[in-house]
């Protein structure tokens, strides 16, 4: 078992400290940062994601693995920067204004991160300006909007309109999700896509960015 294998195993088991150790060791052993990232961390998360889809594990195992990956990433990040490794893409994600639902958004963010995306988490009850700011000033390639209430879903359109107003609509892809929305609603408000759950959100975002 190589150190990369051990790292992967540590992340899958959700052992943050093991992951931390193994990343350090891998760097010492001279592995390139992008190799550690792709073959260690992202591969581990994709593994866990598959187990989840197969019904072998639940979300807690995924989240605990993601937490381990996060810890490891903190060590790895400076090396990635030095090596000039860019994230697959940057996603600004938030639950729209008036809506306090956190869970769906959290899962999508976690799975996107596990697939190599950089996440700008705008939190819940997020006003349109925050999304505009993320695109204008923080380089978001994708805006992901969540709403769980039929009364707050109209605020998704407000965000789309604000992005238009700010003249940045063309620079960004918009994806929406949440119980009350669907593809037809995405079309109607001028979003680029809709995803019914976290796994398909990752597929959809990849598709959108052609990665």
């Amino acid at each position, binding site marked *: 078992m190589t150190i990369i294998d051990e790292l992967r195993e540590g992340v899958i088991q959700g052992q943050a400290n093991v992951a931390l150790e193994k990343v350090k060791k891998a760097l010492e052993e001279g592995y390139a940062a992008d190799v550690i990232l792709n073959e260690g961390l992202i591969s581990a998360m994709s593994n866990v994601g598959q187990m989840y889809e197969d*019904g*072998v*594990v*639940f*979300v*807690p195992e995924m*989240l*605990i693995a993601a937490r381990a990956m996060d810890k490891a990433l903190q060590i790895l990040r400076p090396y990635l920067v030095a090596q000039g490794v860019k994230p697959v893409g940057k996603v600004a994600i938030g639950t729209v204004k*008036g809506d*306090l639902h*956190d*869970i769906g958004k*959290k*899962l999508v963010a976690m799975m996107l991160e596990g697939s190599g995306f950089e996440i700008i988490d705008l*939190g*819940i*009850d997020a006003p349109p300006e925050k999304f505009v700011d993320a695109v204008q000033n923080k380089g978001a390639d994708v805006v992901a909007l969540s709403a769980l209430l*039929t*009364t707050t*879903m*109209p605020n998704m359109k407000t965000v789309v309109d604000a992005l238009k107003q700010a003249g940045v609509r063309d620079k960004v892809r918009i994806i929406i999700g949440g119980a*009350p929305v669907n593809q037809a609603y995405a079309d109607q408000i001028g979003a680029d896509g809709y995803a019914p*759950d976290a796994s398909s959100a990752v597929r959809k975002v990849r598709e959108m960015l052609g990665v």
Partner: protein
Amino acid sequence: MEIYKHLAVKDPDDLIFGHSPRPLTLPNGLVIGGGLVYPELNFTLPPMSISAETMPEIREQYRQIIESACARAVDLYVPGLVVEFELLPEMTRTPEWGAEITAILRDCLDRFAQRDGLKSALRVTPNDIREFERPPRMRSGGLWDDMIRSFELCAQAGADLLSIESTGGKEIHDDAILYADLPTVAYALGVLGARDMTFLWDMIVRVGLKNGAIPAGDTACGFANTAMVLAEIRHIPRVWAALIRVMSVARSLVAFERGAVGPGKDCAYEGPYIKAITGYPIAMEGAEAAVAHSSPIGNIAKATADLWSNESVQNVRLLGGAAPTVSLEQLAYAARLMNTATEAGPHTALMLRNLFVASDTTYDPQAYVLRPDVVIDLSREIIAEETAYGRVRRAALATAQCLRKAHHDGLCPLSPQEVNWLDRLSKQADTLPEAEEALIEQMKDQIDPEKIRQDQYGLT
């Protein structure tokens, strides 16, 4: 303040639909828990924005909803009707709006009472809007003030029953569900939630007393139903959701210790425990609430219900009429069946109850923990402790053991993954300190002050 040390219902056979040891009699003579099960109808708006501009349209919608539902109730000869108006957050933030709708509903119910003899009660449920500020202030501030005012104005506008789905502790509970972090769940429910309920329900009971409205009950909706929904979509293990359900009992119980007298809220599936412990009547929801969410307890929820609810349905049009009217008919027939059994005598009623129970218990541990005998056993364990935290801890330990036995005896078979998780959670429960102070101390480092203000719970 009443501390529950003894069960109000000791014999599982007495834990049955329509009957509660301490029924509630309303001024108009409607008796809840006195033998008959009534429909409790809930409804909400279709997708639309709530604002001063849309309020005329909103008023009209509520007018149509209630008019049509009452007419159907009369057509179907319901012996009584409870209507719940659960405010939309905007209607609590502008308390006048909630009160206006309350008055519209009141007026219609009064008209049908007078013209058609339809006996009814109006439950009004303002929102716990404190969470709109993050981290929330739990005991003061503009949101708190609006929330109190919403209770006051709605009570004055004609609410018979006051309820809330309170959220104290939820700031950290959502994550704890997702991470399967049992100590944090115990802390959120037993320490934070219980403290918040004490403060909050003292306020609601005061408002009720002053304005002639009955403080009814709370629900662990934001906690245990969040877990149930996550279990339903296979995000978390079902045993985890079942544990959280029983752990939530101690928190919901606080409302009754502070003066609530029922009927408990429909979405509080911990209701059977509340009924067994306090003797107050409860609302429940199941199959007919599929309009709002799927659930693994569609029939067993009927076993102990005093009110039978649809949880919530949007005012959209179906072939058979407005969706709330359709729900009313479905609830009316469900309640009629139960009342027919009651009329036939205790033996028949019990047999129907047992069918409701047998129907669901083998499929899901969340159904299993609603078995009347299980409810009585676990309730006895819970009230053996005197503090909310102590009760939450005991609930976790006893429920884990109970589910292990149920699996072992083939009464509620679990998948290997579920069994594995039951072990993991059980081990976490074993680590819970006996003393509340120890848990508080232990949590201090873990709590993120950006998420929660501990001082708002009387903790330092």
